[in-house]
């Protein structure tokens, strides 16, 4: 065989070494006969407590490494463990003399069959129950959680079917791609992997078994194809296929995937993960991590460390953004947010600008200073005056320096309104989608406002359009940039740089490489016309 056809999930095409996952041992049998119903009930309760502990632990780790989709899946698993219908069936079986293993396996098997008979999306939920059955049986046997083993870098993982828990571990392990004999595109395993930008092909049939571990394969999620002729897929080697050096749209427009960092060390991690630069260096983290604002020399060193990691790229350093949920240590009274806070403390602001100018001259990369929480054009003018003064001081003192490019964050409705004027005054705009959503919707910080609310989508569209008209590049450095569907929408609007957490760089690169710009633009147009959040959410499910 050279080609197998299945159902593709997500986007992207990769080549790599095929690795079969071992089949889980789902046998409910155990040595010896069951003890009394009371003893079996105790064993059931102990195993359930252990499974809950395992799920919670995994959920915490998944929340960080994989994100919300994985966290939700594991929370649902926990609900099923305490479901009254499940408890009744286990109780009845144990009363009838079954061992806990058989009682649990049978109860879940009944539900698995029932879900599959119902069909549709309900059938896809049967894999959640298989996952639970595996966890429960391991807990009863006293075994450790199943490991996905040592996978070679850039592996294309093959499995008969994939349970959501294993998908969470694979997603965190950064595999190149996944192919399964069975499964559905609406299964939780597929959703988790898709959310991480991992290309997946499911439902490849029993024929998948003819592919041996170690074989070089190509996997194309768009075409729903697994092939033993990898050159037919990309022609790229495995390393390039995993994280392309440079990504772009299908028509060849370059896209940059950069990283959000808070220190020089994090810049190094970002570099390792394949970031194309730093899209957001949160300079206030230098102060929040220590006792206070570092002096000019210490700041210069931190900025140079980041610039040296990206000798051929841009590093966007945001000036201090204290206030709100990031109060300056030892600050007295209310400090205004963002650039207003900097202008209210002119000595400290001047010191930071001097550090940025010195770093721009010393560091290898190209420095852009980005002003946070801009609400007035005057603020940009005032910073320019301070920058003039800072460069004059450095010149007078004979200190090598270079004037950095200036950018602004668009994270307030005021900045959206002023976007055309701002774009004509600076070198780049940065969308801060977290704050922008909150301010557009008028919600508090902990309300977790949705970026897919139409008012937010339209605000983003207007800001990007204003920048595009002015010929100024726009980056997005909010959490939304790491969401695969939302990333497509941003590209559709005209965003050319997505700055994400260092760990999300490979997945975002895979997600965006080869994206169809005209399809993304059509998506953006429809999303702008949508009048409810659920309409926007539905549209995003069709993201190219």
């Amino acid at each position, binding site marked *: 065989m050279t080609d197998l056809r299945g159902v593709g999930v997500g986007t992207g095409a990769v080549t790599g070494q095929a690795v079969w996952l071992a089949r889980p041992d789902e046998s409910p049998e155990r040595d010896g006969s069951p003890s009394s119903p009371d003893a079996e009930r105790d064993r059931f309760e102990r195993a359930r407590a252990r499974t809950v502990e395992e799920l919670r632990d995994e959920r915490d780790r998944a929340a960080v490494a994989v994100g919300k989709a994985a966290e*939700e899946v594991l*929370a*649902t698993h926990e*609900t*099923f463990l305490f*479901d*009254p*219908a*499940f408890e009744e069936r286990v109780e009845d079986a144990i009363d009838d003399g079954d061992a806990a293993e058989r009682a649990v396996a049978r109860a879940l098997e009944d*539900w698995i069959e*029932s*879900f599959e008979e*119902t*069909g*549709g*999306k*309900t059938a*896809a*939920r049967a894999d*959640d129950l298989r996952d639970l059955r595996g966890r429960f049986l391991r807990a009863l046997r006293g075994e450790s959680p199943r490991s996905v083993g040592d996978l070679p870098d850039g592996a294309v993982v093959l499995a008969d079917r994939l349970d959501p828990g294993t998908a969470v571990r694979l997603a965190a392990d950064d595999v190149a791609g996944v192919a399964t004999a069975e499964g559905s595109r*609406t299964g*939780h395993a597929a959703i988790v992997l898709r959310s991480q930008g991992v290309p997946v092909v499911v439902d490849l049939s029993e024929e998948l078994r003819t592919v041996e571990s170690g074989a070089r394969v190509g996997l194309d999620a768009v075409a729903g194809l697994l092939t033993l002729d990898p050159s037919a897929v990309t022609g790229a080697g495995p390393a390039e296929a995993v994280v392309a050096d440079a990504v772009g749209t299908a028509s060849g427009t370059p896209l940059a995937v950069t990283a959000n960092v808070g220190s020089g060390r994090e810049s190094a991690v970002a570099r390792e993960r394949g970031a194309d630069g730093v899209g957001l260096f949160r300079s206030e983290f230098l102060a929040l991590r220590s006792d206070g604002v570092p002096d000019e020399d210490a700041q210069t060193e931190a900025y140079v460390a980041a610039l040296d990691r990206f000798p051929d790229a841009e590093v966007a350093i945001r000036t201090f953004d204290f206030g709100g949920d990031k109060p300056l240590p030892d600050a007295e009274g209310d400090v205004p947010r963002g650039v207003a806070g900097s202008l209210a403390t002119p000595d400290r602001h001047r010191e930071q600008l001097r550090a940025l100018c010195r770093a721009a001259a010393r560091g290898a990369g190209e420095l852009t200073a980005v002003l946070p929480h801009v609400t007035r054009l005057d603020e940009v003018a005032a910073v320019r005056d301070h920058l003039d003064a800072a460069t004059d001081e450095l010149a007078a003192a004979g200190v090598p320096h270079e004037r950095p490019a200036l950018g602004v964050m668009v994270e307030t409705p005021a900045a959206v309104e002023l976007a055309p004027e701002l774009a004509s005054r600076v070198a780049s705009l940065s969308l801060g989608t977290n704050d922008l959503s909150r301010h557009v919707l008028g919600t508090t910080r902990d309300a977790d406002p949705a970026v897919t609310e139409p008012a937010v989508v339209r605000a983003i569209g207007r800001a990007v359009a204003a920048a595009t008209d002015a010929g100024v590049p726009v980056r997005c450095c909010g959490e939304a940039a790491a969401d695969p569907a939302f990333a497509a929408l941003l590209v559709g609007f005209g965003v050319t740089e997505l700055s994400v957490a260092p760990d999300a760089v490979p997945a975002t690169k895979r997600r965006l490489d080869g994206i169809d710009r005209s399809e993304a633009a059509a998506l953006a147009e429809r999303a702008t016309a949508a009048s*409810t*959040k*659920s309409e926007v*959410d*539905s549209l995003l499910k069709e993201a190219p």
Partner: protein
Amino acid sequence: MTERRVTVARETGLHARPARAVAESAADFDASVTVEYDGETARAASALELTALGVRSGESVTVRAAGDDADRAVAAVAAVLAEEGDP
């Protein structure tokens, strides 16, 4: 006995995560709440039974409850079912 007919608005229908939201809401009441669809009845407190109903988005179900807080329980469960978007 309180009864209310409600259309499931969740885009994904009543599967797993939305079922979990319904079960969590039903757990707040003493009344025993049921959801009937296409001749099958599920306990609102059981996400497994709710998921097995296989209710798709836009389809109608009947919520019933008996007991002291039946009215409030039916209202709460119906509200979760009628909510748009995924939880």
